[in-house]
């Protein structure tokens, strides 16, 4: 576990206050993310960037916390924000030593309320007024002395765009550090009564009006001042239009979704190809023994199954970051909030669920942005039901077989039905969870719609890379271990066998397939397909190659392999001489794949992100049992209706 052995500076501010941009400047974007104990919401800790270090602040840890409107938390991420400052065992003194209250200079009349609470907590503080560039653009100047007098602390205006004012801020932190009194009482301030909030809000509004001074009072300057808000309203008239708003929402989200799938594809192929070559090199150059097999098919394949997701994770985080920093994500959540509320979700859940159509692994990770624990759990639960890209090779094979020699639109229509079927099952499961889960916390929309701004790409790329690195280092080991376990099951006990076909047919995984054959029989399948379904737990697309191994179809070219497999499938019979792949059994298989949770990586991520093994097991068992029951019902129903 991370331990901070030096004094700490905690950044605290409302959402959209410019806190994270400032944090990136202070740490030069080098930090570690830490899960608060018992929660999946993170805070980050980094060292002060070397070029900002002075003799007085050489050794200072800087901590970023989730955005909060108040020190009286009302959601999971706000609880973490408050706890990471006031009750944090990672930090030297069990709490932060200095608070850096981040206040948006254009929203001062609201953001200063947090400064009031921090002052009341007794924590030494410095105020950073952000959006210095916008204030300057609008010919406004901050009366630092007035704010400094009210809060009895240093106040510095910073420019998030160019990093102006950061050195002054460090100087202010150094001065505050020198003023820290040992044994001073620091505590979360008590909640205010309505009258107290009213009184403070009024005082802050007056203060904000006095603290932001007009440098220029001409009509032209005043018009320029409102330009940002007016242009935002103009854009919102289109993007939040009752009709076109939804169409544009659909287009933007489809662009994000297809980017995750298509833009990542060449990079994923590259990673896959590189690891396949590495495995090939090992097989060719290392003497054929168990160790070589373990290296090539256990370690290298395990590493590949971790890193192959990295491009999708990176593109997802880049896409979400772009939408968030431009100001659109808040609008998207607002648009979809009402339909989602019908199944117990909020608009904020939309992006993670949509991402599930590309890959459930980064999609479950994206649920971290949801402030409500309830929303997060429901979204995490239903994401594996969305039709991820790994299902497509399986659908291609099965639909190709089912609609061979028929017009292509039929297979296309069936594919659409599979997508909508998955969404319907997902919505039904979410609605059931909505009824079952206790409403322990209020779900809010109360969405602040920030002005549209041009994103800072440097920060965006750094943050996305940081999050991707976090995915690889934290989720990677779990995925890797599961992949190695799958290799062991497919290799032993007959590990000395040269023929891959024979080795897998005699493996523990194949034995398991034979043992559970009676389970698959009602689906119209034999043990070989059962084995294919078990091997798909490593990754769904593995089903196709496993089937090729089981039915002895060998061709390195994927397209030819599928073609050959379809031919073999059309004549394959079970021990009783009955055809295995019939319209009924293949339809059952399709429904099984539509619902079953067969991805070990998803299981591992779900367990980690929910913080509960029971939760992940419930998904694993629940979706697989549901998939099985529906598939059997369908196969038997079709047979009863005379469809073989």
């Amino acid at each position, binding site marked *: 576990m991370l331990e901070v052995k030096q004094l700490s500076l905690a950044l605290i501010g409302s959402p959209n206050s410019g806190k994270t941009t400032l944090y990136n400047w202070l740490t030069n974007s080098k930090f570690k993310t830490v899960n608060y104990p018992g929660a999946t919401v993170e805070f980050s800790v980094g060292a002060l960037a070397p070029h900002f270090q002075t003799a007085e602040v050489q050794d200072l840890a800087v901590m970023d916390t989730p955005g909060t*409107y*108040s020190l*009286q938390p*009302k959601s999971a991420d706000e609880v973490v924000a408050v706890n990471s400052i006031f009750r944090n065992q990672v930090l030297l003194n069990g709490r932060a030593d200095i608070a850096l209250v981040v206040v948006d200079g*254009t*929203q001062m*009349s*609201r953001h200063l*309320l947090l400064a009031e609470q921090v002052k009341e907590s007794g924590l030494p503080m410095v105020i950073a007024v952000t959006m210095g560039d916008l204030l300057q653009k609008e010919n406004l100047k901050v009366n630092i002395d007035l704010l400094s007098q009210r809060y009895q602390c240093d106040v510095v205006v910073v420019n998030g765009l160019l990093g102006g004012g950061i050195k002054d801020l460090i100087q202010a932190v150094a001065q505050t550090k020198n003023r820290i009194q040992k044994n001073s009482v620091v505590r979360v301030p008590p*909640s205010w009564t*309505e009258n107290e*909030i*009213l009184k403070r*809000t*009024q005082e802050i*509004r007056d203060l904000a009006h006095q603290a932001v001074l007009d440098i220029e009072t001409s009509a032209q300057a005043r018009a320029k001042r409102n330009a940002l*808000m007016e242009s*935002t*309203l103009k854009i*919102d008239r289109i993007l*939040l239009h*009752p*009709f076109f*708003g939804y169409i544009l929402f659909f287009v933007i989200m489809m662009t994000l979704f297809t980017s995750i799938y298509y833009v990542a594809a060449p990079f994923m192929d590259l990673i896959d190809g590189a690891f396949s070559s590495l495995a090939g090199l090992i097989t060719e150059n290392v003497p054929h023994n168990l160790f070589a097999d373990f290296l090539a098919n256990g370690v290298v394949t395990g590493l590949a199954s971790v890193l192959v997701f990295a491009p999708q994770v990176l593109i997802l985080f880049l896409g979400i970051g772009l939408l968030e920093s431009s100001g659109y994500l*808040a609008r998207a959540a*607002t*648009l979809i*909030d*009402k*339909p989602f*509320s019908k199944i117990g979700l909020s608009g904020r859940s939309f992006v993670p669920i949509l991402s599930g159509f590309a890959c459930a692994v980064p999609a479950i990770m994206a649920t971290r942005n949801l402030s409500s624990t309830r929303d997060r759990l429901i979204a995490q639960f239903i994401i594996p039901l969305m039709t991820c890209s790994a299902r497509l090779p399986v659908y291609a094979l099965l639909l190709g077989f089912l609609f061979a020699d028929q017009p292509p639109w039929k297979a296309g229509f069936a594919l659409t039905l599979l997508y909508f079927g998955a969404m319907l099952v997902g919505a039904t499961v979410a609605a059931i969870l909505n009824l079952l889960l206790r409403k322990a916390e*209020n779900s*809010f*929309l*109360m*969405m*602040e*719609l*920030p*002005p549209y701004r041009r994103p800072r790409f440097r920060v965006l790329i750094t943050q996305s890379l940081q999050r991707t690195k976090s995915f690889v280092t934290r989720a990677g080991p779990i995925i890797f271990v599961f992949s190695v376990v799958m290799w062991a099951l497919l290799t032993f006990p007959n590990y000395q066998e040269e023929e891959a076909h024979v080795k897998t047919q005699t493996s523990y995984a194949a034995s398991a397939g034979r043992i559970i054959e009676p389970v698959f029989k009602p689906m119209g399948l034999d043990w070989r397909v059962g084995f294919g379904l078990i091997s798909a737990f490593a990754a769904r697309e593995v089903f196709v190659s496993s089937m090729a191994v089981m039915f002895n179809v060998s061709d390195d070219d994927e397209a030819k392999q599928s073609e050959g497999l379809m031919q073999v499938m059309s004549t394959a019979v079970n021990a009783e001489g009955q055809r295995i792949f019939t319209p009924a059994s293949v339809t059952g298989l399709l429904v099984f794949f539509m619902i079953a949770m067969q991805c070990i990586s998803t299981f591992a991520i779900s367990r980690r992100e929910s913080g509960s093994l029971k939760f992940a097991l419930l998904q694993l068992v629940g979706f697989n049992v549901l998939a099985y029951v529906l598939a059997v019902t369908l196969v038997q129903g079709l047979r009863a209706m005379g469809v073989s």
Partner: protein
Amino acid sequence: MSHMNEPMTGSIQIIEEIVGDAQKKDRLLEMGLVKNTEIEIVGHLPFQGATLIRFETTLLALRKEEFQCLKLNN
């Protein structure tokens, strides 16, 4: 789209009181929606969706039940 009980888009309203459950009320107050605040109704999303309001330099989207916590007097 405007509904019978919704204030007209573009209208200016004054918050007379904040009502409703404690958590919602507290959050609205913390966001700066206190008594006597002047708000502009920017728009309503269809199907009983969010109401968009503007006050000071802030744009805010509120669910119907959140918006109903604001007792308005125009």
